[in-house]
């Protein structure tokens, strides 16, 4: 599903943000990407959904080669990847419903199907009766759940979550993680970037450590 082979990323010559990363994540896996702030977690996730191009190496995501991908194909790759951003990236002037519906509107789905799927996704993250509200009327945890609903509403094969519990208290964090494991149980490959050791201990999943752009896996 995700295969990286000697991948490098640098914004300046000689300063690698991602250095010689090789890893393999299979279909249906749940993986934690762990590292301190600035270790390269967000950059690595960005490479996977083509928000940044890789500098060198080979990478395959959902049968797309990231080194050779045609810019025109990037939107189609992104449709198969749900992304939960650290800063949520919700549109504050749109309702919760509209924020989640964006992903389906892009696919040209009819309004009835959109209504059905968005309602289902919001129900799944426990926000069934919030659809008419605006993001700023919700708490941080609720906004995070809207971001998750938007990322999974079109049933992507991969879900990338960047610090999904970053600003939440432990109880809410567990809530969010439970939602993500549920989504994983339905068959979606999940990759969660986090620096929260508590979560790693609570949810015993495969963990990839990233430090100064290099990855390693505890045995």
């Amino acid at each position, binding site marked *: 599903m995700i295969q990286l082979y000697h991948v490098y990323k640098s914004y300046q010559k000689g300063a690698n943000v991602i250095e010689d990363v090789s890893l393999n994540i299979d279909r249906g896996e749940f993986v934690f990407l762990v590292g301190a702030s600035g270790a390269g977690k967000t950059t690595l996730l960005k490479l996977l*959904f083509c928000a940044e191009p890789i500098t060198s190496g080979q990478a395959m995501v959902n049968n797309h080669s990231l080194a050779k991908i045609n810019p*025109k194909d990037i*939107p189609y790759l992104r*449709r198969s990847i749900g992304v939960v951003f650290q800063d949520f*990236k919700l549109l504050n002037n749109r309702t919760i419903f509209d924020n989640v519906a964006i*992903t389906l509107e*892009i696919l*040209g789905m009819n309004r009835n199907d959109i209504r059905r799927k968005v309602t289902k996704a919001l129900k799944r993250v426990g926000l069934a009766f919030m659809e008419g509200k605006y993001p700023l009327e919700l708490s941080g945890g609720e906004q995070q759940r809207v971001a998750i609903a*938007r990322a999974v509403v079109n049933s992507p094969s991969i879900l990338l979550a960047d610090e999904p519990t970053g600003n939440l208290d432990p109880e809410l964090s567990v809530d969010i993680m439970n939602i993500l494991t549920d989504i994983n149980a339905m068959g979606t490959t999940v990759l969660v970037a986090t620096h929260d050791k508590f979560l790693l201990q609570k949810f015993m999943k495969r963990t990839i450590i990233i430090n100064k752009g290099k990855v390693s896996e505890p045995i």
Partner: protein
Amino acid sequence: MILKKLPYFFRKALSNIRYSMLVNLVTISTISVAILIFSTFVMIIFNLTNLVSRFEDDVHIVAYLDDEFVGGNENIKKNLLKLNGIEKVWYQSKENALKVFKESLGENDLFLKDIQKNPLPASFELRLKEGYKDRKNIEAIAAALRSMGIFSDVSYGQEWLEHFHNFMNILKVIGLAVGGGFLFAAVFIISNTIKLTIFVRREEIDILRLVGATNSFIKAPFYIEGLIQGFVGSVISIIGLYFLYLVFMAKVQTLSLLGVNSTSMPFLPPKFLILLVAFGTLLGLMGSYISLGEIFKRS
């Protein structure tokens, strides 16, 4: 696929307009003013062209018979009718010419009493066939009349029509330059306001990109926004033009100038109006096309 998404694009464009109402109002007013100025020129040129063609229809030649010529009028008339391009010929005798002249003077005819001899010549008025009313043919006919040697003078009101034609050409150039200038400015302003609305919504565009929207999906509502701005702007300008026309006609009629009325100076026909609206709509589309091209090239 695009057709399937069209209702979404329209909804999106309308909600975009609602979100940035002020910017849209500025754009629509700019288009209205530009099209209004342009269409005012179009209407002036249209009516003047009509006027010229009506005058051209009236063009005729008058050939004044030499006083010393003695001969049968009927014969001359027959010979004149044989000339190329002559439809009808009327004869006016010296006496008749004087009578008409006296009538036209009304009470001011006192000075005519001192005149012993009728100074007015007899004349033939020639009406021309269609296709012979242009300057070249009229001059050819006039030359033919002069070469007959029996006319003291041949006159036709073509010269001032030529001046009028020149005036019209100058007006057309000015109209195109001023109107075109305003249209150019309109495209510039539209593209800038669209840039502004894109800037306001850059966050949304970023998010759309990240969740897998293609460039054309992102651009389409902006194109439709441009189309709507162009359409609304040009419809408003035509309403404005009609209002200006009514005010102008009311002024002209109270002054009863030149016998102008709505038949002699009509409003632009529907064909022109449709073209102007289509043109305005295209203008709006062009504005958004230019700005989107620039912005997407940069990103």
